């Protein structure tokens, strides 16, 4: 009884886990069944089984050998003595022989035995059958070869026997003997020895089983001491992932798991510091942009108030001065727009932009936007169904529409179509969809992903347009503030199309 190679401490228990990692949901509990705790317990059990089993097996083998050897040695030497003390008349005759054999059988030691004799073709025994069924040809051959006799253990029909073959000899000298041709066999049942051996086996097994049960206790303790820090680490990692960068693990003891906890704490500390520095840098940059535009605004307010004075008087100046004055006046206006847009973007970045929502008739709002910008000729076509009401910030929605239409007229081409509709969404409330399509060449695919970037210039050769370069970025922020989305694309027949989707919040009438 040795270790079964199949139950070795190989990776077998771990194997199903690897499969379960990719398997969907229901497999997870099975993967858990081969978790760390189970594997630790299995390992402890395995070690206990191997050591207890090996000890029991070795003890059993040694004890059994000693037990059987004593019985054999006693039997063999006593049989040899009896055979030597018995005189046999030669040639052997069957009648007298049986009597001698019965006499020998009575002297069996440590247990009674049945004695058989073989001489040529003569067969005799102390029992009823003259020939034994348990004596093997090998024993017979060995008995002829070795004058000091030979023995063998045989199991027949579940009963163990000791068979001893002892040839009778003539003494021809002090050390020389000559076989007489008569061989005596003793057949002894070893049942009592077998009972003793069986008792040994049971004792070994009974000793090993409680050992295995006891081995479970340190296994559980070890599993717990490993699993608790692992669970803590698991929770801490999840907490870290959800943005709580101040997550730390209590460090207990000085083992490898404590080292792991310490490393985790150090890493999260470093991460927290880096993130804080990044945020501070971002905050500084943001505040700088806000401060700069703030500081620019005050002188601009003074300049902008007097641009009209400059323009009115430009006619009376000489040509060069007049051009210079008009340039200053026009650029002051552009600078004012740029600074206002920068301020607006800063507010979005600082999340200080507020949504002052109001229930509006959307078609009416769009018509007003177009009317106020004097886009009332056939450059802008509209498809505005009546009766669509939505909660919008009128000022911001006005900016969105004005920017998209203005953009379409400037970079695309007339006619520009403004289309309004609503659509149901499987998830969430229905949405208000506003499309602004132009008839220009469309937007190049390389430009599309960057179209809402700040100061993105679609054409590198083009320097500065009339806009601030922030128009679409502000439009995007305004749409996002409404909880909506905006996308840009090209129509199959040519021309760019911007699609704004804003969720419609069902508002109860009256109140």
């Amino acid at each position, binding site marked *: 009884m040795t270790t079964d190679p199949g139950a070795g401490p190989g990776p077998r228990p771990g194997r199903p886990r690897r499969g379960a990692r990719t398997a969907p949901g229901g497999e997870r509990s099975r993967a858990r069944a081969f978790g760390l705790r189970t594997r630790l317990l299995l390992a402890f059990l395995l070690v206990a089984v191997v050591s207890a089993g090996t000890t029991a097996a070795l003890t059993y083998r040694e004890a059994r050998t000693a037990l059987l050897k004593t019985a054999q040695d006693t039997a063999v030497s006593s049989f040899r003595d009896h055979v030597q003390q018995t005189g046999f008349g030669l040639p052997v005759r069957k009648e007298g022989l049986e009597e001698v054999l019965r006499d020998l059988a009575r002297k069996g030691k440590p247990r009674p035995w049945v004695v058989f004799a073989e001489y040529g073709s003569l067969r005799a025994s102390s029992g009823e059958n003259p020939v034994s069924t348990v004596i093997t040809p090998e024993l017979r051959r060995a008995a002829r070869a070795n004058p000091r006799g030979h023995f063998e253990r045989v199991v027949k029909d579940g009963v163990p026997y000791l068979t001893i073959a002892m040839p009778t000899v003539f003494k021809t000298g002090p050390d020389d003997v000559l076989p007489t041709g008569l061989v005596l066999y003793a057949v002894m049942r070893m049942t009592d020895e077998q009972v003793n051996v069986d008792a040994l086996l049971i004792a070994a097994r009974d000793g090993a089983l409680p050992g295995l049960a006891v081995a479970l206790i340190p296994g559980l303790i070890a599993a717990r001491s490993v699993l608790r820090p692992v669970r803590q680490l698991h929770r801490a990692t999840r907490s870290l992932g959800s943005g709580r960068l101040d997550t730390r693990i209590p460090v207990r003891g000085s083992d490898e798991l404590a080292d792991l906890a310490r490393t985790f704490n150090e890493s999260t500390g470093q991460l927290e510091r880096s993130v804080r520095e990044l945020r501070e840098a971002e905050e500084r940059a943001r505040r700088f942009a*806000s401060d700069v535009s*703030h500081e620019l*605004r*005050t*002188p*601009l*307010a*003074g*300049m*902008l*108030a*007097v*641009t*009209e*004075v400059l323009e*009115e008087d430009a006619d009376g100046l000489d040509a060069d001065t007049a051009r210079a004055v008009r340039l200053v006046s026009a650029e002051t*206006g552009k600078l*004012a727009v740029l*600074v*206002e847009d920068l*301020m*607006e973007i*800063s*507010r979005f970045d600082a999340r*200080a932009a507020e949504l*002052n929502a*109001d*229930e*509006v008739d959307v078609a009416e*709002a769009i018509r*007003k*936007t177009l009317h*106020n910008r004097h886009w009332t000729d056939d450059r802008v076509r509209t498809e505005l169904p009546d009766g669509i009401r939505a*909660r919008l910030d*009128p*000022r911001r*929605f*006005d900016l969105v529409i004005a920017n998209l239409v203005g953009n379409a007229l400037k970079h695309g081409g007339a006619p520009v179509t403004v289309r309004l509709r609503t659509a149901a969404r499987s998830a969430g409330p229905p949405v208000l969809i506003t499309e602004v399509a132009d008839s220009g060449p469309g937007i190049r695919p390389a430009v599309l992903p960057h179209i809402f970037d700040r100061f993105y210039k679609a054409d590198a050769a083009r320097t500065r347009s009339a806009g601030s370069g922030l128009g679409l970025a502000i439009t995007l922020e305004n749409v996002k503030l409404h909880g909506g989305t905006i996308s840009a694309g090209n129509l199959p027949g040519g021309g760019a199309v911007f699609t704004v989707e804003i969720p419609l919040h069902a*508002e*109860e*009438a*009256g*109140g």
Partner: protein
Amino acid sequence: MPRVLLIEDDPSVREGVELGLRRRGHEVRAAATGEAGLAALAEFRPDLLLLDLMLPGMNGVQVCRRVRERSQLPIIMLTARGDDFDVVIGLEAGADDYIVKPARTEVIEARIRAVLRRLDGSGPGRPAVEVHGDLTIDRSALTVAKGGRPLALAPSEIKLLLHLSAAPEQVFSRQQLLEHVWEHNFHADARLVDACVARLRGKIEDEAGSPRYVQTLRGFGYRFGPL
């Protein structure tokens, strides 16, 4: 042409706005602080006050409150969006309108004209004096009395009341009111309407918490009555 008192601490804005308005024929007095502006008030007797919100010392909101204690002088606030002072606080203190800086002179002048424009409330076949519950509204004299006692209403408040009461029980959206009462062409800040309604209710309603005269229709706007 209207006389305008400008209270603005920044010299370039003060000078620019003063120059621009004067060129358009306004008589302008400029003051650098709230205290100086209040001092000039009695002597200069302006038709309108252009008031910067961010002032050193006494700030624009405090100046606005001080002015409202004694008179219903039309007040337009000069603000910069994103300033520490919220527009709403200024409006609640009694300002009639606001202008976001930087602004062209034509924009400033348009706002001044709009605030000063008298509502032609007395249409044909309409009595000059109307009585709604305890309120007596005189459309030609532009006075309002409650239970016989005259009420001191700021220009924007009386315009709003005249506009609403001209069509009792008709609902006006905040955008409509911004267009008709404040003459804002572009979509403006609807908080202007809400602040004015709050001030008006404080003066005409028995209980501002459960208004009778100026009622809110959530999601749609405001209406006068029904009483």
